[in-house]
């Protein structure tokens, strides 16, 4: 009975190992985009505000992922199940990457806004 209980998680862990626990594909916002030079002050302000809101959301989600990873690592000491918990740790840093990309994007947009003499 106990052998069967442990066999499944171990087999699943082996399958994960064989398949490779690939990280999620992350597509950050490009810091410079075609057409940036043609944006007017209103469009720049809209984009900057939208990016700020999205970045704040991503930073919040990043903290949650970090907490979840810590919990999984602590749970890693549980025999059998522990390995599965560790294997499910998310190291893609997706939210952090997206948030930082948006902060940098805003820096570039603010440069264009300043060049165009837009009100801060």
């Amino acid at each position: 009975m106990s052998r069967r209980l442990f066999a499944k998680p171990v087999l699943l862990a082996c399958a994960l190992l064989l398949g490779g626990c690939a990280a999620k594909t992350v597509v950050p916002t490009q810091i410079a985009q075609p057409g940036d030079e043609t944006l007017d002050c209103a469009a720049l302000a809209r984009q900057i505000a939208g990016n700020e809101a999205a970045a704040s959301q991503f930073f919040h989600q990043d903290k949650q992922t970090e907490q979840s990873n810590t919990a999984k690592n602590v749970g890693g000491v549980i025999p059998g199940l522990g390995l599965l918990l560790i294997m499910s740790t998310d190291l893609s840093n997706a939210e952090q990457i997206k948030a930082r990309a948006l902060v940098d994007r805003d820096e570039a947009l603010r440069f264009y806004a300043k060049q165009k003499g837009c009100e801060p």
Partner: protein
Amino acid sequence: MNQEIKTMLKNPSARRALRVAVALAAAAALNACASAAKPEAMVSATAPDAKPFPASLQHAMCVRAVTGGEKTNALWISKVDNDGFKSALNTSLDSAGLTAPAAACSFPIDVNLLGLSQPIAGFDMTVTSHVNYKVYDGSGQPVLLTTVDAPYTANFSDAFVAAKRLELANEGSIRTSIGQFFDKLRDANPKAAAKP
């Protein structure tokens, strides 16, 4: 020999010892002490037949700041730190003939390592680095702003121990990233790009 092994495996305590040994070997393969990515392994070598850089960038660049890197926790996984990245980029600039003499830097570079997307395990480990490179001219105007996403896979033949494989994938990813940044620099037009 096979008969001896079969006889040995009939013994429950021998089977238990074998299981523990296999589990320990698996754990060792999965996790060993993690080391930070090595700067010398992240240096991008410039091919002699590569397209030349714009004349105005040659012997005129320097690395001003590298941010976003992380220190490696030996008990967890390999990371890339700011100092290591900066050192690798400086050496790469040097070998490409882009480094400015001291106090004569016309095109400072700021680097923001947005993050590394890493796998937790696997025979083939692919790490993708996401990096923003920002090159400015002397007046502070951007010459080149670019985001580089660079995947690199280290496989089982590169290293048996997973922690080492991940370190190799980190190093390969940053090396590829610097190489792609250099390709974009080759196509940059410093004078035209200065005007937004």
